[in-house]
């Protein structure tokens, strides 16, 4: 038995790392959401005669959450695609929780998924209702047009308060929704005209919901690789949501293919990394 505090601390750090590596299982939700994205492609055929299916910013547009689960490109069956994505997001969440429990029974260490479920569900609510509602209120009732510096300061304050709410140890049933509300309002500021970043409210909110879920997963898994994949995916979601580029040959698939590829390759890469880790 070692009595040296340095050796003991090293030994404990080794045990912590081993337990952390053994409980990692994020390759499955990555691969699952990637496959579910690819399966959505047959429903994502571009409409050759587009009418105005998409968000027009009119009164009450935020009351139709399914509208945000379409794609930027108008598709032939928008309702079927929205319902598919609603089902896929809920099924993906349930399958992920089942996966971590099944894996715990096999490996002997269980990843805590409570925070993931809370943030994923509340994140979905934020993406479908919170950000659209907050954006709508800003457009309609804000006495000033927020400029970039005003937005930056307001976002920093709101996100700081949201972080405090998320980290509160008491009354978490109250503080987590409050934190999410603050984060929703902060994020909706990105959509004001002077900043003009679309977070998927113009179609593609499902991928923003997946990004929120992956970032949470990276946090509870304490995994650098998962964090890198989640950040790359979030970056790609923002690029797809905001790029004016149109590739006619891909049709509406251009809104899905890059993101599905990142998820599938990320999942396969994570699986390979887990297999080769000692």
């Amino acid at each position, binding site marked *: *038995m*070692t009595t040296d*505090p*340095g050796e*003991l*601390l090293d*030994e*404990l750090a080794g*045990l*912590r790392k*081993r*337990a*952390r590596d*053994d*409980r990692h299982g994020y390759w499955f939700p990555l691969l699952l959401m990637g496959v579910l994205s690819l399966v959505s492609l047959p429903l994502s055929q571009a409409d050759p005669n587009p009418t105005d299916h998409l968000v027009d910013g009119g009164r009450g547009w935020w009351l139709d959450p399914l509208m945000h689960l379409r794609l930027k490109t108008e598709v032939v069956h928008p309702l079927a695609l929205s319902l598919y994505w609603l089902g896929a997001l809920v099924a993906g969440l349930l399958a992920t929780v089942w996966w971590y429990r099944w894996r*715990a*029974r096999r*490996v*002997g*260490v*269980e*990843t*805590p*998924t409570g925070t993931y479920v809370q943030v994923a569900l509340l994140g979905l609510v934020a993406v479908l209702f919170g950000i659209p509602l907050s954006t709508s209120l800003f457009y309609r009732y804000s006495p000033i047009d927020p400029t970039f510096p005003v937005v930056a300061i307001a976002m920093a304050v709101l996100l700081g308060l949201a972080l405090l709410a998320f980290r509160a140890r008491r009354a978490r049933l109250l503080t987590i929704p409050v934190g999410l509300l603050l984060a929703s309002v902060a994020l909706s500021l990105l959509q004001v005209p002077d900043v003009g970043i679309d977070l998927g409210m113009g179609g593609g909110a499902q991928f923003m919901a997946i990004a929120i879920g992956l970032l949470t997963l990276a946090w509870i898994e304490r995994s650098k690789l998962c964090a890198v994949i989640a950040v790359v995916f979030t970056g790609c979601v923002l690029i797809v949501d905001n790029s004016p580029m149109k590739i006619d040959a891909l049709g509406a698939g251009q809104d899905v293919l890059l993101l599905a590829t990142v998820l599938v390759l990320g999942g396969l890469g994570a699986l390979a990394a887990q297999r080769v880790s000692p």
Partner: protein
Amino acid sequence: MTDHPTAALDDVVHQRHRLGILTIAAEVKRVEFAYLRSTLNLTAGNLSRHIAVLEEAGLLFVEKGYEGKRPKTWVSVTPAGREALAAEMAALRALLDRHTRG
């Protein structure tokens, strides 16, 4: 005069295997008995005794159940266990600092 860092070491926690159990349990939601036994290279009897000491001190929560016909024991750390582990790690780091400076 400040206390020597060894004064902060807790007799219940400051045992290599018990520290190992707490460290692993604090990293996960819950850990199975067989995983602890193989990772810490302990016999079942030895591990049971360490777990009993930590459970009695309110630092661990033990769940016994079955998976099919096989009995399974799951161990999770309590908030008091998390605090005790953090205090022990801080004391070890302080001791290391003092040792390095001295």
